[in-house]
């Protein structure tokens, strides 16, 4: 991608980030300004909305924004209650934030493909990716945060059981006694793979879905711009259909991320059987 020319570089040209490099030699020392900017704006909007709504909460029959938020809050609360054996006051707000944050960011994707990019061009920015969930950094950040929380609760609530599980599962009971020390490292490796697979699958699922969605949007957009009258008409309708479908996918991915967050944390909260 790096060798693509800037500007009209085809689809790949539209898949580059607005990058600020802090250290040319180290690929880790760079920041995607577009991802940071858009997620900060969305987070700021959510915070502003929260402050605005907090002053207007009524204890009687809710209406308007409060009613809408109450249905979301009630839905998340019910999901968490259904999945959780114990009450933890942090889980529901976490799940709520995951759901709303991802759903809002994914919804940005239904804006016309080049719109925000062109707005950014007006300010002299060459590349601009409008949807932060298309940047692996955001899904990975959330998934790793959730994973760290899961590990924290595993060690806090049942340290002995968890360590035992790391070493003893799944093979120890299947081999004779003298082989147990030999299979323990194998168990550990398998278990670590299993645990690491959680944040990996969590982040890549969201990233992959949204990235593919954007690529398809770009394909449709190029069809629309480059295919003459028929192409434009076809592009318009295909684009409309894909927008509606992608809106649904965005919401679905937000829900999946939320429900998996709740489920992983719920597993960490399950009391040890032994």
């Amino acid at each position, binding site marked *: 991608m790096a060798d693509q020319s800037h500007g009209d570089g085809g689809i790949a040209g539209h898949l580059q980030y607005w990058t600020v490099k802090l250290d040319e030699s180290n690929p880790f*020392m760079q920041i995607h300004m577009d991802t940071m900017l858009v997620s900060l704006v969305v987070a700021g909007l959510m915070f502003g*909305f929260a402050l605005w709504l*907090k002053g207007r909460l009524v204890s009687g029959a809710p209406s308007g924004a409060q009613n809408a938020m109450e249905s979301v809050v009630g839905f998340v609360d019910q999901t968490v209650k259904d999945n959780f054996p114990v009450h933890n006051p942090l889980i529901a707000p976490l799940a709520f934030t995951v759901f709303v944050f991802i759903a809002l960011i994914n919804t940005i994707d239904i804006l016309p493909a080049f719109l925000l990019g062109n707005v950014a061009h007006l300010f002299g920015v060459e590349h601009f990716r409008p949807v932060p969930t298309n940047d692996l950094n955001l899904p990975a950040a959330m998934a790793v945060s959730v994973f760290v929380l899961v590990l924290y609760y595993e060690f806090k609530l049942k340290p002995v059981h968890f360590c035992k599980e790391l070493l003893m599962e799944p093979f120890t009971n299947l081999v004779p006694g003298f082989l147990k020390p030999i299979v323990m490292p194998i168990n550990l490796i398998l278990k670590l793979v299993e645990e690491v697979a959680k944040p990996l699958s969590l982040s890549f699922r969201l990233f992959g879905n949204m990235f593919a969605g954007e690529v398809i949007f770009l394909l449709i957009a190029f069809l629309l711009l480059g295919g003459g009258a028929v192409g434009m008409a076809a592009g318009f309708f295909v684009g409309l259909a894909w927008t509606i479908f992608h809106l649904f996918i965005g919401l679905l991915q937000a829900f999946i991320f939320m429900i998996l967050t709740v489920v992983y944390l719920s597993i960490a909260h399950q009391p040890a059987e032994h």
Partner: protein
Amino acid sequence: MSLDLTFIGQIVIFLTLVVLMRKYLYGPMIDLMEARSQKIADGLAAADAGNEAKAKAEVEIAEQLKEARTKAVEIIASAEKRSAEINEEAVVKAREEAQQIVDAARDEVGAELNRARQTLRAEVAGIAMLAAERVVESELDASRHATLVEGIVSRGFGNA
């Protein structure tokens, strides 16, 4: 498409957002919703209690009404009995009084009759004496014959 500092920044944004959402949106809303469901539950419980009390009161009222009705029937019955007794007493008394009046009247009539008889007897004796005097003229001893005539008269009127 690799991880970089954005990853760190996103973790900070995400965790900050979780804390802020918990404090300013989710916490207040869930408190409010729970308070509301509690209020609704309390209201429903109060309504149930009220309905129960109402049903109880209705049963009580029906019982009291029934009791009052029975009592009223009893009172009416006893009053009717009492009035019948009074009536009966009055009738008996009236009958007695009437009897007394009739008896007194009869006594009076009897006395009157006796008196009249006495008078009549005396008069008749006088007349008879007078007549006998006229018939027998002076040859008869008035006082001796008077006794005789009186005896005759009394015997004759006494049988009459």
